[in-house]
Structures are given as structure tokens and as C-alpha cells.
């Protein structure tokens, strides 16, 4: 291992790296160039892992040593402010786990599944290239900046380095992304649970289970996390198994066979309650359970993929790269990149890399391992999601991911439409898949989660249990996704409420007081209404919601990444490291071009499938003519769609505007920095280690 991460230059080391490079090149060649024959997933895994190793060894360490100039002798906040609580020097492997658990989420699982509509190749190439050049660079650089600034948050760093106006703009951007993320993730859960009594029952059971865990961990055996998690896990498995009985008993199933709008209202209500209740009762126990399950399932899936080595059924490239696909609208550029988002570069991570992690780093020398390394791991999760989606029969994939407005509501219609797209599938195949996983239907289960769950159940059931357990594995996968998405929803609502209180508090100072119950209730309600509005709008969208919402989410996420990378670039100039600024300038430019193009296209594109204004105009014209256009059922529904279009258009325009103004501020700051002879970055003063950091 030391040869892989160290700087050895011996002949053996060189041979080893040559072999890794050759293996990676061969694997990538097989993945990229084979046509017709199904490719084995193992090649994808090998190519990815080789690329990660090479990227880490050569690019991450180059950035660390040359570009950022990390200095192991410099004391980190963890050492200087050590309090045993927030600031604790932490073993790098333990901290890696902490950081990875904090950045891993639904994004890298859902994005690649949706991106598979263009075939597995375009998405895979971007997941690999994007993480090496953009995503991991962003995570690591922000982690470095925050470590040098006592663990300050992204917003604070933008304010300090680029001024209060830029700071406020970034703050608005962060609030927007928060709202959209909560809405889209909740939408993924709703789409996965609609008309699925088994899934709904199991997910609902997590509430009483969390309460039991919460009471146990608070009053019976305080702080015994292992015990309470074990209890929770056993109860969860029981709920999962009993869920099958529920779904097969019509009287019981009726209670859990819910419509989209009902589920949406329940989740909005849940978000409100969970963010107001004491954390130990509901939020924390769910968080524990979902964190452990997330890490466990990701590990399990990795092992299963390596052992099972499934063939990829999806073609390398489909005809939908022209932008006519049924899963989401828009052409390869910019929308493929917007869709994948988190698996290659996620703006959200800039918030985490400037959160708790920088307060626990023992030595600056560990920044590449934790910042760059954890993001490589995240990218691997995205690759696994891509594999899971691609092991499905393409006909099944498109039947699951196209809205009912496109493929109809019966298996016969769906098979007909999907076969006409060029992915020949029979109605029997579609019903068989549903039957195998214990669902009534798998048609139009948009949102990515059900597709991922079917793929995971195929992979996992060929490892454990075979066909008999396919249903359990499917619902286990749904449960795992729903569990950690809902944990994001409740924790996110709390964060959102704080940001709203902070923002409104500027006008009404009394509103800033976070201890006040009235403020908490009002703040939480406001937060829930904001994301709930978009969630509800997505749920009643006859095109399935994901069609409209996911590109908005992707744009907001990439917008935040652009903000973070602009900050990184400005700081490199202020540090007088401009010689190496291309390291962040290249990904920043790419993200700016991507988000601005996507934002502008979402607003002004003449195709109503892509442009909100064109869609609104089409609907308005129809209203004026007294016509009701599909997917709407009445004129009032039409006017609501028009209103939603304008809201969405405003948002997309705002994202683009935020990015553009950050770029303008970035340019001004860079010019100022170039005009100043000495370094002006606002780092805390250098303090050298008396005994040297405990860097391993």
C-alpha cells in the first residue's frame, strides 16, 4: 500500500504504476469501444479503480504539494483549538469514514441512473473525468481553504475573501439549492412509494422504530449507539419481511396503497414534525440507522458487483444523446453533466468540506487523502449506480423511467411504446419484473430509486437468496434509499429553517432568536412550505416531476460547485499561486459554462419540453383558445402549470444570475490580487508544530 500512496521512485514503483496505467487503459478501451456484445461490469470497475489510483497518486498529490502548498508543519485547527469535542485531532482513516458518510447521499445514486438513458458510456466517462478534474479538486481545495481558516464555512470564506455582497449572493445560492434538494429528494421517495404498499409500510415503520431507538438511547441505555442501532436494524428487517404479508393482504394493503399527493403531504408533515421535535427522539436515531445502513449497503453492493460481475444490458450509447429521451429533456451538453451532478462534482460537498471535517484534520498532509480520496469513493458509488441501472434490460429501464404521459398506463401500451423506441420488450417481461420484486407494476416508477432497487435486487439476489429473495432485496433497497433521503429531508429542513431565520432576521431581528418556540414553528413551517411547494408541484406533474425537477436540482448543485471553485480560484490568486490557478480555473470555467447554458436553455429554449417560457406560452395560447392540452385535465390545471412554469423559469434564471455575478466578483478580486505585490489571502496566522503533527 505504501508504494501506492507514497512518493517512492524505485524501479518497482515505476513498474507498478505502469501496470496500473496499462490495466486501466485496456479496461477503459474495452468499456468504450465494444459494440453489440454486452460488456461485463468488471471492466468498468477495473477501469474506474485504476483511474482513481493514478489520479490520486499523480494529480491529487501534485495539487497538494505544488498548487496549494500544504505544509505538514503547520498546526491545523484540530490541534490549535483542541477541545475534545468539535476540534479533535482524528486518525485519518476514521476521519475519512466520517467525511465520506457526510458527503455520500442520494445524488450519486440517482443521477447516473437517470443519465443511463443516453447509454452507460457518456455518463461513465463524465463520472470518471469529472471527479478527477473537477469534483475531487473542489472538495480537496475547499477542505484546504477551510482548514487554513479555522474551519470556517463556505459562506464565511466567500464573505471574507470576496466581500459582503458576494457573500450574500452565495448565501442566497445556498438557500436555493437547499430548497430544491429537499424537494427533489422527497420527490424521489414519493415516486418510489406510490402504489407500493410493501415499500410504504416498511418506510412508515421507520418512524415508530426510530422513536423506540430514541427512547432507548435516551432513557434506558443512554448513549449506547451500537445497542440502539442493532435494535433498530432488527426491527427494520422484521418490518421489511412483514411488509410482504401486508402487501398480500388486501385489507391491510389498502391502508398503505397511497397516491402521490397524499404521500407528498405526509412527507411535508413529517419534515415539519421532525424538525420541531427534540432531536434525540426522532431525527438522531433515524440518522444513525440511515448512516450505518448507507455505508453497509454501499459496501455490500461493491462486494456483490465484484463477485457477480454482471453483464451490462444497456447499449454503450443510445439514440437519445440527441436530446429526445423520455427520462429527462435536453441534449447531451449541458444536460448530461447537469443530470449526473453529484457523482462527478457536487457543490454540496463544498458545504461539508467546510463543516466539521476541517476541524478534525490532524495534519495538512492528510488533506488529499480525505478531500480527494473521499470524493473518488463517491464517484465509485456513482459507477455502481450506473452499473445497477445498466444491468437491467433496456426495455425495462425505459418502461420504469418514462412518465405515464409518454408510455401509457398498461403493460401492453408501455411495451408497445418502448419497443417503438428501439428497445424491444414484451408486456410479459414488464409484468414479470414487477411480479419478481413483489410490486403491482413497475411502469413509470420515475425518480431513479426504483430502477436502482431493481438493479440492486438483480445483483444481490444472484449472490444471496436467488429469485426467492428478489422482492426482499428490492424493498430493502427502496428502504435504504428512502431512509437516508428522509433523514436528509428532516436535517435539511432544520438547516433551511436556520438560514431563513438568519435571512429574515436581518429585517426583523427578533426572528433570529433560535431558542424561541414561536420562531422555530414559523421558521420550520416556512421551510416546509418552500420545499413542499416544489415537491407537490413535482408530484402532480403528469410528466412525472423528475423530468422537470431533476435538471433544476442539477443546475443548482453545479451552480454551487461553480461558486466554490470561483472562490478557490480567487484564493489561489490571492496566495500568489496564480501559476497553478488553471487547476481550479478549468473546472470552474466548465461549470460556469454548463450552469449558465442550462439555466438559459431552461428559461428560453424554444422547445416546450426544455424551455419553461416556451411551455408556458404554449399553455397560455391553448388557454386563450379554450383548449385543454395534455397532460392537464382542465383549464384551471392549465393555468397552474403556467404559473409553475414561471416559478421554475425564475429559479433557473436566478441560478444563472448567481453564477454570473460570482464570476464578475471573481474577476474583480483576481485583478485586485494581481495588482498587489504580496499575498492577501485571509489565512489564520502560521503556527508551527512544536513536536510535529501526528501525521502517519
Amino acid at each position, binding site marked *: 500500500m505504501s508504494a501506492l500512496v507514497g512518493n517512492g521512485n524505485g524501479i518497482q514503483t515505476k513498474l507498478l504504476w505502469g501496470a496500473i496505467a496499462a490495466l486501466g487503459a485496456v479496461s477503459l478501451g474495452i468499456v468504450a469501444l465494444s459494440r453489440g456484445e454486452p460488456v461485463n461490469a468488471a471492466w468498468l470497475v477495473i477501469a474506474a479503480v485504476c483511474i482513481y489510483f493514478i489520479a490520486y497518486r499523480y494529480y491529487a498529490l501534485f495539487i497538494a504539494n505544488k498548487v496549494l502548498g500544504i505544509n505538514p508543519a503547520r498546526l491545523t485547527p484540530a490541534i490549535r483549538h*483542541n*477541545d*475534545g*469535542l*468539535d476540534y*479533535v485531532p*482524528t*486518525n485519518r*482513516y*476514521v*476521519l475519512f*469514514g*466520517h467525511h465520506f*458518510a*457526510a*458527503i*455520500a*447521499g*442520494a*445524488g*450519486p445514486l440517482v*443521477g447516473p441512473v437517470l443519465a443511463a438513458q443516453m447509454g452507460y458510456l457518456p455518463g461513465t466517462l463524465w463520472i470518471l473525468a469529472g471527479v478527477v478534474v473537477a469534483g475531487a479538486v473542489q472538495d480537496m481545495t475547499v477542505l484546504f481553504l477551510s482548514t487554513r481558516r479555522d474551519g470556517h*464555512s463556505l*459562506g464565511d470564506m466567500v464573505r471574507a475573501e470576496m466581500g459582503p455582497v458576494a457573500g450574500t449572493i452565495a448565501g442566497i445560492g445556498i438557500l436555493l439549492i437547499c430548497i430544491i*434538494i429537499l424537494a427533489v*429528494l422527497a420527490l424521489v421517495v414519493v415516486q418510489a412509494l406510490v402504489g407500493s404498499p410493501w415499500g410504504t409500510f416498511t418506510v412508515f415503520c421507520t418512524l415508530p422504530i426510530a422513536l423506540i431507538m430514541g427512547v432507548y438511547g435516551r432513557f434506558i441505555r*443512554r*448513549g449506547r*449507539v*451500537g445497542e440502539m442501532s442493532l435494535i433498530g436494524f432488527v426491527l427494520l428487517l422484521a418490518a421489511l419481511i412483514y411488509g410482504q404479508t401486508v402487501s398480500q393482504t388486501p385489507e391491510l394493503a389498502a391502508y398503505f396503497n397511497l397516491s402521490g399527493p397524499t404521500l407528498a403531504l405526509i412527507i411535508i408533515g413529517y419534515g415539519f414534525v421532525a424538525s420541531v421535535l427534540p*432531536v*434525540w427522539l426522532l*431525527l*438522531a436515531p433515524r*440518522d*444513525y440507522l440511515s*448512516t*450505518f445502513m*448507507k*455505508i453497509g449497503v454501499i459496501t455490500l453492493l461493491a462486494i456483490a458487483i465484484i463477485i457477480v460481475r454482471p453483464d451490462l444490458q444497456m447499449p454503450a450509447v443510445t439514440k437519445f444523446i440527441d436530446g429526445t429521451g423520455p427520462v429527462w429533456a435536453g441534449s447531451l451538453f449541458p444536460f448530461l453533466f447537469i443530470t449526473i*451532478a*453529484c457523482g462527478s462534482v457536487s457543490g*454540496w460537498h463544498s*458545504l*461539508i468540506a467546510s*463543516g*466539521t471535517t476541517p476541524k*478534525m484534520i490532524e495534519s495538512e498532509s492528510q488533506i488529499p487523502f480525505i478531500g480527494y480520496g473521499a470524493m473518488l469513493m463517491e464517484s465509485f458509488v456513482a459507477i455502481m449506480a450506473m452499473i445497477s441501472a445498466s444491468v437491467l434490460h433496456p426495455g425495462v429501464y425505459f418502461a420504469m423511467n418514462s412518465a405515464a404521459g409518454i408510455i401509457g398506463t398498461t403493460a401492453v401500451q408501455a411495451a408497445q411504446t418502448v419497443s417503438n423506441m428501439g428497445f424491444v420488450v414484451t408486456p410479459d417481461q414488464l409484468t414479470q419484473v414487477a411480479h419478481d420484486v413483489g410490486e403491482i407494476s413497475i411502469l413509470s416508477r420515475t425518480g431513479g430509486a426504483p430502477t436502482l432497487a431493481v438493479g440492486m435486487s438483480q445483483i444481490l439476489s444472484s449472490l444471496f437468496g436467488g429469485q426467492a429473495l428478489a422482492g426482499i432485496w428490492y424493498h430493502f433497497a427502496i428502504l435504504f434509499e428512502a431512509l*437516508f433521503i428522509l*433523514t*436528509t429531508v428532516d*436535517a435539511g429542513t*432544520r*438547516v433551511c429553517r*436556520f*438560514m431563513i*431565520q438568519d435571512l429574515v432576521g436581518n429585517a426583523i431581528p427578533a426572528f433570529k432568536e*433560535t431558542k424561541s418556540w414561536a420562531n*422555530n414553528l414559523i421558521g420550520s413551517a416556512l421551510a416546509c412550505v418552500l420545499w413542499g411547494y416544489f415537491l407537490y408541484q413535482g408530484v402532480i406533474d403528469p410528466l412525472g416531476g423528475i423530468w422537470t425537477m431533476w435538471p433544476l436540482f442539477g443546475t443548482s*448543485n453545479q451552480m454551487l460547485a461553480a461558486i466554490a471553485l470561483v472562490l478557490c480560484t480567487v484564493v489561489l490568486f490571492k496566495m500568489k499561486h496564480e501559476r497553478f490557478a488553471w487547476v481550479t480555473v478549468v473546472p470552474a470555467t466548465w461549470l460556469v459554462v454548463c450552469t449558465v447554458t442550462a439555466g438559459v436553455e431552461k428559461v428560453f429554449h424554444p422547445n416546450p419540453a426544455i424551455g419553461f417560457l416556451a411551455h408556458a406560452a404554449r399553455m397560455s395560447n391553448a388557454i386563450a383558445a379554450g383548449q385543454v392540452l395534455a397532460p392537464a385535465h382542465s383549464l384551471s390545471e392549465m393555468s397552474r402549470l403556467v404559473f409553475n412554469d414561471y416559478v421554475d423559469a425564475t429559479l433557473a434564471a436566478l441560478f444563472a444570475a448567481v453564477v454570473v455575478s460570482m464570476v464578475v466578483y471573481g474577476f474583480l478580486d483576481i485583478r485586485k490580487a494581481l495588482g498587489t505585490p504580496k499575498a492577501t489571502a485571509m489565512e489564520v496566522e502560521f503556527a508551527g508544530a512544536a513536536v510535529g503533527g501526528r501525521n502517519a
Partner: protein
Amino acid sequence: MPDLLSIKFAEWKEHGKTVKTWSVRAARLMIGVPDYDTYVQHRRTNHPELPIMTYEEFFVERQEARYAVGKGRFRGCC
């Protein structure tokens, strides 16, 4: 060779223990609870005059801090 076997066994037991200790630490930190012994050690060494929280108090304090509204802690979205 019973001796050698028992030595090997003891060695593996030791390894197992280390793996367990570190896994538990990693798992705890993933949910925002840093190592308690490290905290106690820190307090004893640097602030012997100040009170030391029990594990239970420490856990509750960390739990509140992880979800404290106002600190803007972001986690697990994508």
C-alpha cells in the same frame, strides 16, 4: 506446535481487538460522536481544573451539537 498456535491465536485476537476499536470509533464519528477517551484524556491533560462530562453527558452534548440549528451543519445530500 501448540505453543506456536496459541501465540498466533493471541496475535489474531489482538488484531481483532484493534480492528474492532477502530471500527467502533469510525462508526461513532460517522454519526457525530468523537472518541470519548480522547476527550477525557484531553481534559485531564489540559484542563485538570475543569469538570469532565460522563460518557452519557458527553453523548447528549454531541447529539445536540450535531443537529444544532444555527451552526449550519450540512450533511448527506449528494
